[in-house]
């Protein structure tokens, strides 16, 4: 792959919590256009932190980050490119902060400088494409958990991101909503990294699964072993990564 198609490049990234616990430990990571990657790993291995470091929400202690071919280190660098990556938060309540669904979905496009009319059009299109037509005037805090998750996805997609970072998108969803989300993600042709503990889901919406362990991303040979482990009937339930 050529360098220009590298969307995200992390080099020697270290991140530790204030209590000294290292979460990202000399992490190397390259994410290319059209990659669809699943990311698994035990709790506390730094998957969410990785996403936050990529988005510039947390500053790594050491290491360099390159987004879309440009090195980013300060908030103003991140502010310029952040909208090109869509991060779906673990908790939809964090993401939906406007009173109504329409206001929430238009929030991103309006921040990008689109007119109200244009933003509303994009929002309605996005909602319709997710099967949420007619939700515009609904009050966000009154939505069900599944609806909240889908609307959160709409708020992210309305910004037309070039890459998606989905942080445990199936947590707390019933089978029906999970199936809908899976369907939507299968149709969407956007590069993505998906954190999940659900191997079945990952196998449907991504093309390869990486493992996160000891603050590093384990790729290549390990992945094949991993996929093999999960090839048996109870793959979705057994998650031993060691």
């Amino acid at each position: 792959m050529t360098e220009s198609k590298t969307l995200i490049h992390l080099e020697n990234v270290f991140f530790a919590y204030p209590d000294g616990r290292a979460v990202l430990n000399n992490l190397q990571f390259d994410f290319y256009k059209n990659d669809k990657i699943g990311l698994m790993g035990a709790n506390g291995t730094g998957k969410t932190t990785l996403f936050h470091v990529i988005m510039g929400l947390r500053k790594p202690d050491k290491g360099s980050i390159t987004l879309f071919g440009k090195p980013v280190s300060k908030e103003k660098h991140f502010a310029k490119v952040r909208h090109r990556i869509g991060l779906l938060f673990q908790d939809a309540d964090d993401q939906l902060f406007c009173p109504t669904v329409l206001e929430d979905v238009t929030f991103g496009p309006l921040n990008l400088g689109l007119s109200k009319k244009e933003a509303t059009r994009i929002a309605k299109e996005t909602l319709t494409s997710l099967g949420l037509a007619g939700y515009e005037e609904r009050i966000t805090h009154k939505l069900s958990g599944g609806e909240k998750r889908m609307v959160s996805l709409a708020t992210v997609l309305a910004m037309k991101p070039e890459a998606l970072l989905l942080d445990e998108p199936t947590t707390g969803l019933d089978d029906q909503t999970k199936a809908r989300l899976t369907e939507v993600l299968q149709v969407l042709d956007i590069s993505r990294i998906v954190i999940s503990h659900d191997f079945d889901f990952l196998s449907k919406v991504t093309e390869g699964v990486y493992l996160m362990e000891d603050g590093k991303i384990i790729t290549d040979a390990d992945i094949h072993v991993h996929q093999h482990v999960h090839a048996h009937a109870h793959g979705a339930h057994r998650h031993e990564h060691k």
Partner: protein
Amino acid sequence: MINEPFAAGTSIIHKLGPRYRIVIAVLYAFIVAVSYQFPVLILSLCISAIMAVCAQLNFRALVQRLLLVNVFILFFWIVLPLTGGGDIQFYVGPLPVYKNGILMSARITLKSNAILLSLISLIATMPFSVAGQALHALKVSDKIVHLLLISYRYIFVLEQEYRRLITAARIRGFKAGNNIHTLKTVAYLAGMLLVRAVRRAERVHQAMLCRGFKGKYYCLASFKPSYGNWIFTTFMAIIIICLAVMEWGNI
């Protein structure tokens, strides 16, 4: 559960423009608050009651709200007549009851109920989000409007978290009592709630940054003009002027 019992409805007041209702409610509340004479106060209570009837408010919910406020007012009735000074009206046992205090308590009661009724009828009858948009349209500072809207949005989440904590305490056998253990538990609860609120605020801010937030807020609402709004505004303006004339016009 926190709710908005009056927000939905099809009454004549629900149909009026939110901006007009807010302006009138503020002016009306102001004039009632500064009025002193009993005829004016009694008349305004009647006008407020008429508004409440027009808004077709849920009677039970309305009484509940009024009761809450009037419990506080009850304390005025206990304290003021005994400490009001001036002429003594009568004695309760050895305690003198002052006329001034009784009048003052009566005024407070009339005013509070009149204002409360009018605010419930005019403002509580719109969804909070609409009120926020109307304030924005009335050129209230963006920051204040969004502070209100975001507080409104997250008060429900905080309530949920509060309930989770309470339930967690209860299922482990916690019973509130008059002892140190209760105080300590309640303090932990309040502390946890605060920590969670701060964490939540951080995450919401992060989510806003991720969606390109640069410190500027946008408001989508546009309000349709209608004749009804002007009829209502003119009518209420006349009433407010009449109240003012009655109060200060030496009629």
